[in-house]
């Protein structure tokens, strides 16, 4: 996985217990077109509290252009921003 740290638009599911789950996100591809990537599976979810800055880290798996890819999404709690952190 390569470090990207790109701000992205995300649709996420928050359940009644406060668990969150990214469903799909929008990404600009090489031709500057929007592509929507559906999150097929969340492999791991953990919270990172480094320096007191809370971030939810999701290691996810999706099928992109017929290829199974692993990537990391992050949600920064203080700013409510989503990042495609690594892909």
């Amino acid at each position, binding site marked *: 996985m390569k*470090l990207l740290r790109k701000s992205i638009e995300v649709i996420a599911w928050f359940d009644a217990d406060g668990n969150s789950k990214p469903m799909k996100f929008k990404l600009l591809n090489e031709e500057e077109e929007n592509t929507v990537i559906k999150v097929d599976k969340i492999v791991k979810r953990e919270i990172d509290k*480094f*320096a*007191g*800055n809370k971030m939810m880290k999701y290691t996810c798996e999706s099928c992109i252009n017929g290829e199974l890819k692993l990537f990391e999404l992050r949600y920064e709690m203080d700013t409510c921003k989503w990042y495609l952190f690594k892909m």
Partner: protein
Amino acid sequence: MKPSGNNKVIMHIDVNSAYLSWQAVYELQQGSSVDLRELVAVIGGSIAERHGIILAKSIPAKKYGIQTGEVIWQAKQKCPDLVVVPPNYQLYMKASNALYELLKGYFPAIQRFSIDEFFLDYTGMEVHFGEPVEAAHAIKNRIKRELGFTVNVGVSSNKLLAKMAGELKKPDMVHTLWTHEIQTKMWPLPVGELYMVGRKTNKKLKELNIHTIEDLATADRKLLKDKLKSFGSLIWCYANGMEESPVVNGSYLPMKGMGNSSTIRFDVEDNKTAYKILLSLTESVGSRLREAGCCCSVISVSIRNAELQTYSHQRKIYSPTNVTNTIYKTVKELFDECWQGEKIRHLGVRVGELCSDKCIQYSFFDEGNLEKNRSLDQVIDTIREKHGKYSVVRGIFTDGEVSPILGGVGNDDYLMMSSIL
């Protein structure tokens, strides 16, 4: 393991190069590939604004002889490749709060001594978390694992010794300094390492041929008291490891006064500009005063000129006040009385002799529009609280030469270091 006589166990937690560690960890979290802690790096203000002093340094930077409080250009002479990162107080507050939250899981009484230092009372908690040293290791490692930065933990029987223990060797260590270890661990250190002994006291002690903490501890207490007054007695006690203050929950400190000061980007040569800066400092002091529910009876102004000489002037006023305009009027008078006309580099406004604002004795000499001014301040404070610090500013500041509210660290919740254990 524990000392006899005193069965208290106090811990002191100190974040290693706090600002720098927090910045480094934050940048790593944000995907940076370098760790500031491994570079010759410092956290420092901006040179262009003349706030150019070093606030924190990495351990490699220490090897170059770079010191906290030093001016950045001097440090750059020592190491031309020095990495200077501007401070981010909001982040530091966040990190400090996260550490506080973590510690709250263990301790009922936590004293926040400053943004990066905590005193904890471990007395009687062995049942829950084991021997003090083991527990200290566990806490230290958990902080490192969860929050990403390293701390030093000092374990002893009082706050002073715990603090001294924490300073022994850095980073990421646990040290004990029980009373029976004072002679071997603390006494050989230079006297300047002792808490409360700063540059000036160090110099005075040198004149008395006191160079190490042992020299101080074995010195004649009466001699010290004669030379340094009650402070001499205090540091003599400290050198002997005597200190008994309890761990106070929270960060409560009896406030004796408050003030704001600022180094100015340019040298001030006329009183008009100086007034403006004083006004902006008064604005922040006034609002802090009102927020604390206090009034002041003593107002003082300090001036540092381009030759770095500092002097100040103060006055007691007829009736206690917290009205910005009234304070400013006295500030102006004081400034006129003491300024010698030279170039000014740094200005400060301080207020003292605080009392509650609940009931104030007026005097004959008060201005007539006091109540109006008071409600004006109240309205301004409310607007600023609701819409931000700069939502209402005085017209005189619209040229942008001087910030409308000067002083402070830009964060109201920021915890300042104190000198009272």
